[in-house]
């Protein structure tokens, strides 16, 4: 009985292997056609005025792809690009999470008061941005408006973790929004 089961398993796996191989081979042969079909579908999602352009451009890119599998990858990328192209030039590129920025600022004693001081001085802080893996660092430098510390430059690092890298440039916008919405200080003596 055991031998029969073993034999059945062997025969079954051999058949499955052959059929799987045939299907994979068939799919591989049809990959360029599939890629072309995906590109044509993707073009439909592009804004109408750009459809003709991207169809030709993406199909030429498809011809330049080395290997059939890379053609399918390119086609899938085109599908993704077609959805993202809709947002180009629109106002949908805001990744504002103001509360998160404010929380971080408060944690570092950068309260609304200090930010408003910056705002009163109307001096653009020199802002440097860079990224390392998924960490986002910002260094700001500006001057106190405090009567005692007036004129002294301060410089601080802020580190935001788990920021998506492709969003980092919007940090400038986040700061400008945070600054604009910061509470007006009641006393100039309460600087950290």
């Amino acid at each position, binding site marked *: 009985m055991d031998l029969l089961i073993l034999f059945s398993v062997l025969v079954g796996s051999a058949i499955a292997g052959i059929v799987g191989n045939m299907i994979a081979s068939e799919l591989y042969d049809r990959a360029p056609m599939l890629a072309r079909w995906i590109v044509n579908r993707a073009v439909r999602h592009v804004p109408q005025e750009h459809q003709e352009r991207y169809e*030709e451009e993406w*199909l*030429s890119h498809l011809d330049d792809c080395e290997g059939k599998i890379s053609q399918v990858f390119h086609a899938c990328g085109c599908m993704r690009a077609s959805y993202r192209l809709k947002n180009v030039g629109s106002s949908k590129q805001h990744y504002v999470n103001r509360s998160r920025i404010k929380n971080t600022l408060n944690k570092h004693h950068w309260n609304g008061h200090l930010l408003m001081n910056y705002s009163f001085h109307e001096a653009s802080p020199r802002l440097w941005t860079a990224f390392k893996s998924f960490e986002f660092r910002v260094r700001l430098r500006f001057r106190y408006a405090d009567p005692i510390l007036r004129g002294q430059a301060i410089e601080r690092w802020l580190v935001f973790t788990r920021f998506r*890298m492709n969003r*980092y440039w919007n940090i400038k916008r986040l700061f400008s929004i945070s600054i604009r919405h910061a509470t007006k200080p009641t006393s100039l003596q309460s600087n950290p």
Partner: protein
Amino acid sequence: MAINDQDVRLTQPTLKVLRFLLETPREGRSGAEMSKATKVGSGTLYPMLARLEAAGWLSSEWESIDPSEAGRPRRRFYMLSGVGYRAAHTALADLQIGTGELAWTS
């Protein structure tokens, strides 16, 4: 589709593409060439190129062939504009990415 400079997000793929284009600023490069050289996939590359073009950093033109004669679709070549050349230089100099370490300007 025009956007301003503030909307050009200088992500790592964008910087890779800008650096690649800076190698031969006067020469047009197709999407396939850029994708191959920078390893940036089509899904990221084309929206990025569209944004850079809309911001005036890039200009593009069709390959000068007749598709029916050549028997293949025309390529679209992208090149840096004057504004893009300066902006790309500034962005790469400011961030100094690619040296393995972060370097801050002061």
